[in-house]
C-alpha cells in the first residue's frame, strides 16, 4: 500500500512541477458574471483567434488590498479591470504601470477615460430612476422634483453614505452640473447639500447594495430612487418592468479601467490586448449585452440605436452627466461619512 502511495505522491509532484513550469497564459481579470461572459465573446475570444495569444480569465471583487496582494510576488495577473480609486492609488503606489498613450491616442477617448496608468473601459452611472407605471401623469424630471415631496409625495431612496447623495442634493438645489464639485469643495457647499437632504429627511430611506433599488421600486417601497443604470435596464429586460431613468435630471458617471500590473512579465502582450480592445467598432458591440457605455469617442455613434439611450456615454445623455470626482472623495469620504452619520442620527 505504501509503495502505491509513494508512487502517487511522486506522480503528483511531477504534475505540480509540470504545471508551474508550463508557460503562463495572458491573464485578464474582470468582474465575472454576465458582464465577463459578454467581454469573453466580444474581446477575449476574438483576440486569441486573431493573435494566437491564449487568454486565461479570472474574476475579482475589487479592493486595493486584493490588488496589492496580486502585485507582490510572482506574476499571476496581467490585465485587471479596476475602479477609479484603485487606479489612482495603484498608480501612486507603482503597482500598476503607466500606459503607452502615444499608441492609444489621448484624443481617441473620453477625457475622463485617460489616466497615466489606465484606460477607462466602460462608463456606468448612478441615476434617478422611477417606475413609470406608478406615474401615469409623468414622473420626476429633475433632482428638484426628487426633493419636492409636495408634487411627488412618497418615500425616496438614496445610497447610504455621502457619495453621490451630496452631488444630487446640490443639483436639486439648483447648482449646475459642471459647478457641483466647486461648490462641494467649500464648507458652505457641504452645508448647503446637507440642508437640502434635511428638507426631505422624513421621506428618505437608504440602500446598501446595488440590487436593492430595482427591488424597492418594484415593491412600491419608494416612488423614486438613485440606482446604477445597468441594474435598471436589467430589471426592465428580465422582469418586464417599466422603470425609467431621468437622464435629463443629471447623473453621476464613473469609469472602470484596464490596468497592467507592474509585476506582469507579459507587458507587450497585455498592451497588444488593450490596443485590440480599443477598436471603436468592437467596443460598440458591448452595450446590447449590458448597458455600459464605451469610452472611445467614435464608439457611441456605432452603438445599436435601440440601446443607445440606455447608456451613460450616449451623446444625448452626456450633457447632464457629472464625472465622479474620485480625488475629492478619496480625500473627504471619511470626514463626510462621519458628518452624514451625525446628520442621519439627529
Amino acid at each position: 500500500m505504501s509503495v502505491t502511495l509513494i508512487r502517487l505522491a511522486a506522480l503528483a509532484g511531477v504534475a505540480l512541477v509540470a504545471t508551474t513550469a508550463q508557460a503562463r497564459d495572458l491573464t485578464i481579470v474582470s468582474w465575472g458574471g454576465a458582464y465577463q461572459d459578454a467581454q469573453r465573446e466580444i474581446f477575449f475570444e476574438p483576440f486569441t483567434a486573431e493573435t494566437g495569444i491564449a487568454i486565461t480569465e479570472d474574476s475579482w471583487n475589487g479592493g486595493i488590498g486584493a490588488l496589492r496582494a496580486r502585485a507582490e510576488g510572482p506574476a499571476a495577473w496581467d490585465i485587471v479591470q479596476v475602479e477609479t480609486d484603485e487606479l489612482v492609488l495603484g498608480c501612486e503606489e507603482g503597482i500598476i504601470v503607466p500606459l503607452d498613450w502615444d499608441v492609444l491616442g489621448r484624443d481617441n477617448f473620453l477625457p475622463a477615460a485617460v489616466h497615466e496608468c489606465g484606460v477607462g473601459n466602460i462608463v456606468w452611472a448612478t441615476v434617478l430612476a422611477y417606475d413609470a407605471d406608478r406615474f401615469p401623469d409623468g414622473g420626476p424630471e429633475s433632482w428638484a422634483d426628487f426633493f419636492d415631496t409636495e408634487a411627488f409625495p412618497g418615500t425616496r431612496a438614496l445610497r447610504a453614505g455621502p457619495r453621490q447623495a451630496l452631488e444630487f442634493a446640490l443639483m436639486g438645489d439648483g447648482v449646475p452640473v459642471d459647478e457641483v464639485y466647486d461648490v462641494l469643495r467649500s464648507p458652505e457647499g457641504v452645508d448647503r447639500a446637507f440642508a437640502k437632504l434635511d428638507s426631505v429627511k422624513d421621506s428618505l430611506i437608504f440602500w446598501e447594495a446595488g440590487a436593492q433599488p430595482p427591488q424597492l421600486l418594484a415593491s412600491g417601497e419608494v416612488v423614486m430612487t438613485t440606482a446604477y443604470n445597468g441594474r435598471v435596464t436589467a430589471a426592465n429586460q428580465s422582469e418586464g418592468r417599466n422603470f425609467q431613468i431621468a437622464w435629463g435630471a443629471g447623473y453621476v458617471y464613473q469609469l472602470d479601467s484596464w490596468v497592467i500590473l507592474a509585476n506582469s512579465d507579459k507587458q507587450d502582450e497585455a498592451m497588444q490586448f488593450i490596443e485590440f480592445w480599443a477598436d471603436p467598432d468592437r467596443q460598440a458591440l458591448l452595450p446590447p449585452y449590458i448597458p455600459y457605455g464605451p469610452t472611445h469617442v467614435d464608439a457611441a455613434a456605432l452603438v445599436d440605436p435601440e440601446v443607445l439611450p440606455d447608456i451613460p456615454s450616449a451623446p444625448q445623455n452626456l450633457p447632464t452627466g457629472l464625472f465622479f470626482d474620485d480625488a475629492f472623495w478619496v480625500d473627504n469620504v471619511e470626514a463626510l461619512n462621519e458628518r452624514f452619520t451625525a446628520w442621519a442620527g439627529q
Partner: protein
Amino acid sequence: MAPVEVIGEVTGESAGRPADPAALRRALRRSERRRQLWAFGLTLPLLGFLVAVFVVPIAGMLKLSVANSELATAMPAATEALRAWDGTGDDGGVPPEAVVAAFATDLEKARAARALAPVAQRLNNAFAGDRTLLQGTARNLPEAPDGSWTATLEALDPAWGEPRIWQSLKRAAAPWTDLYLLQALDLQRDATDAIAPVSADRAIYRNVLLRTFWISFLVTLFCFVIGYPLAYKLSTLPPRLANPLMILVLLPFWTSLLVRSAAWIVVLQREGPINESLLWLGVIAEPVQLVFNRAGVLIAMTHIMLPFMILPLVSVMRSIPKSHMQAAIGLGASPLEAFFKVFLPQTRPGIGAGCLLVFIISIGYYITPALIGGAADQMISYFVAFFTLETVNWGMAGALGSLLLVATLLLYLVYARLVGLDRLRLG
C-alpha cells in the same frame, strides 16, 4: 496507544522487582508525567488554533489601532529630523530650514520609489485633504530649492507655511499614535497638542457605541420576553411533541443570515403581507414603515437571536423536577407565588446564559442592520467594515474594534460581579 505502552512498562518493571516501593513510586510518577504530557499534547492543536485565530488577530487589531509606521518606513531621514525637532519654529510653528530640507529631499525620494501613498493616507486620516496636498507637492517638487526649501514648498502650496501641517507631520513621525483611539471616542489633538472634543458634526462614535449597546439590550429584552414562556412550554411537553417544536426553533439556524434578513424586508415592506393584512383589517389607514428603520432592525434581530435564548433556558428548565412546584403549591403557595419563589430562581443560570449570549452576539451585528436599518440604525461593525473595506483605514478599524472589545469586557465584568459566572449554564 502510548498510554497503554506506558502502563505495560510499569507493570513489567514492578513484576521484575516487586520489593522496591520507591522505584515503583518513581516509575509511577514518571508514567503519570508522561501521561499528562501526552494529554497536554492532545490539546496542542486546539491551543495552536486558538492562538492563531483568536490571540494573534486580537493582538494585531490592538496594535493596528496605535501603529504609526507609515512615515518612518517611507521617509526615514525626514522622520528622524521631525522627531528631533522640538515642535516650535521661527515662523510661529514652521520648523527650521534643516528639517524642511530633510523632509523635501525624502519626499522626492519617496515619490521616485512610489512609496508615498501610505504616508499620504496616514496624513489624510488625521486631516481631510492632506493626501492631495502631499501628492500634489511631491509631483511638482523641483530638484533643487528655489532659495530655501521652506520658501519653495510654500510657493507650491500656502498650506506649507502654516504650523498645522507640520504639527501633523510631527505626530505622524512618532513611533505610536493615539489619533485613532481618540477619534473613536470623538476626541482629537488640537493645535496645542491638548486633547479636545471634535466638532459636533463629526462626533458620532460615542453615539454609535451607545446605539450598539441599546439595540443589543432591546433585542435581549425582547428575546427574553418571548423566549421564556416558549422555553417553559417546550420543557413541559412530552418529547413526542417537544422535539418537532424544537426543530422549528432551530430551523432559522439552518437558513443563511442574509436570506433571513432579506426575507424580513419582503415581509415588512409597505406592500408586504403585514401591512396588507393590517390595512385589510382596518387597523391602519396608511401602510406603516416597518423596515429601513429601527423597528425593522429590532424585529429581524429578535427573530434571529431567539434560539440563543431558548436553548439554554429549555435545558435548565428541563432539569427542574416538577415536584418542586407541586410541593410549593401543596404547602399553600398560590401558583404565581410558587412560580416566582420556586421556579424562576432555579432558571436563573439559563436566563444569565441566554441573555449574555444574545447580547454579546448582537453587539457584533453588521449585515442585518445594514440591510434592514436606516442610516441612523447602523451599529459599530458597520463602521469597522466601512474603514476596512472602503477606505482601507486600518487604524480606525482597529481602534473601533478595540473600543468594542474593551466595552464588552467591562460589561462582562459587571455581569460577572452581579450574577456570578459560576451561575452560568450554556446548555
